[in-house]
């Protein structure tokens, strides 16, 4: 296998790792967003001037 081929493979591997990290992060952020949406619904039910957490 040539050096060039190895570089291609390494590049692919690096991209794959990066994609995989980004996907993990994305899942985390989407869970967080769902939580925020729930909070948003809850907030609409809260009386004005009342302290909320």
């Amino acid at each position, binding site marked *: 296998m040539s050096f060039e081929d190895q570089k291609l493979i390494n*590049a*692919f591997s690096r991209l794959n790792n990066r994609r995989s990290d980004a996907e993990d992060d994305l899942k985390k952020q989407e869970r967080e967003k769902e939580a925020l949406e729930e909070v948003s619904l809850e907030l609409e039910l809260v009386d004005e*001037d009342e302290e909320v957490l």
Partner: protein
Amino acid sequence: MSPRVSAQEAKNDMLIGQTSHTEIPPSLSFSSPRPLRYKLPDTFIHVKQSDALTLLERDTARIDEEIERLKQHIDESEEEMKRLKVLLYGKFGNNISEWRARRTRRDRLADVSLARAHNRFGEGLRRHES
């Protein structure tokens, strides 16, 4: 882990940097001239409903932005992987998996790091196909 932590260590753990006034809505700003930001991972604070709304809107906007950024990042990675895959299949055809096994055996002792990169490639390639 020792239960005893010096004040300095605790400070080092908690203090992650200064914040700028722009990150905090003016109504929530602290009076200190140099506000310090402490990391509070699972903590609740009492705020007025209007402030809660402000914080919520800010967090939602930030997360939407982050999600958009990550999706774009993933798309770009996949686009480039597709391109590389075409090149690699062009060179190695369907011998890739066979070659992978042979290569791994041969390099088990000689070049562990190369074999590792290679395994990751094989994994990624299979994942990419599914």
